[in-house]
């Protein structure tokens, strides 16, 4: 069995519908447990006070905002190289979810920044690259909507996605490239020494799991919707052609 079998829309829909209930349930459980644990059962930080509770929303959403773009990049590359329509539709389906994740990261960052940094916003490298990533997301969705031919739209949005990847990478690594910004280093890392204290770390991991599962559930569901919309358009075009032919014959 090959992964490319799922480039077939029918097989993709069949697999997606089998997996989705588990993803939705997993997302609801992880988000419910993680957010309740983080909000109600973790202490205040000695410096940040209760604003540390914003970490359970800010870190997972920022992580998903960047990784959603990387998922779109992989799907776009598959479209460019192998011309699988499902991959182009998956990239299209992921963009609005990425917008929401970026908005949450920007809002929660600003709300946290005001009491901690004394400002809602600073032209810090990470914040700025994140804002540009948000604008790329908007541009990506607008480009899909602006072009009527779906294959041309998929081609052009795939190129936009490649260009926007620069800002996704910058958003991820800006805190390492530049030291002059306000934004602190990564809260989580595979290197255990850089992580937040365990009391915050475990609920944060559960919340990250919840955001990942929610993202996957949303993208699979939305890709199914895009496939159905495309089939509806194809059927309607066929109906119009048949009606025109019948009218010409009469």
């Amino acid at each position, binding site marked *: 069995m090959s992964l490319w079998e799922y480039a077939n829309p029918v097989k993709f829909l069949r697999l997606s519908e089998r997996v989705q209930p588990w993803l939705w349930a997993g997302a609801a459980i992880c988000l419910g447990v993680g957010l309740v644990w983080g909000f*109600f059962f973790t202490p205040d930080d000695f410096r940040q006070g209760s604003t540390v509770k914003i970490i359970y929303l800010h870190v997972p959403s920022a992580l998903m905002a960047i990784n959603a773009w990387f998922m779109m990049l992989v799907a776009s590359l598959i479209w460019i190289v192998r011309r699988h329509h499902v991959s182009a539709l998956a990239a299209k389906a992921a963009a609005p*979810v990425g917008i929401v994740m970026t908005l*949450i990261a920007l809002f*929660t960052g600003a*709300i946290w920044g005001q009491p901690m940094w004394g400002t809602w916003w600073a032209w810090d490298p990470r914040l700025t690259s994140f804002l540009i990533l948000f604008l790329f997301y908007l541009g990506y969705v607008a480009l899909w909507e602006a072009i009527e031919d779906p294959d041309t739209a998929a081609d052009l949005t795939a190129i936009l996605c490649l260009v926007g990847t620069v800002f996704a990478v910058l958003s991820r690594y800006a805190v390492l490239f530049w030291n002059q910004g306000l934004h602190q280093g990564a809260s989580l890392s595979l290197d255990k020494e850089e992580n937040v204290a365990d009391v915050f770390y475990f609920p944060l991991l559960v919340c990250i799991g919840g955001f990942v599962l929610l993202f996957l559930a949303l993208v699979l*569901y939305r890709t199914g*919707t895009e496939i*159905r919309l495309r089939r509806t358009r194809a059927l309607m075009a*066929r109906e119009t052609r048949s009606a025109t032919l019948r009218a010409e014959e009469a």
Partner: protein
Amino acid sequence: MPDLGKYADAVLSAYAVSILLLVGIVVLTLWRGRQARAEMDAVERRSGRNG
């Protein structure tokens, strides 16, 4: 409800905005999905009838 001290507004507004956005995208996604499924079913039925 935990005592959020002087940062209560900040913490509560961060949670309110985020939960609203998450619920919003989920509701919109499900609503559009159902609409697309109903549209496709209707067109398929019509196409089937017309051969």
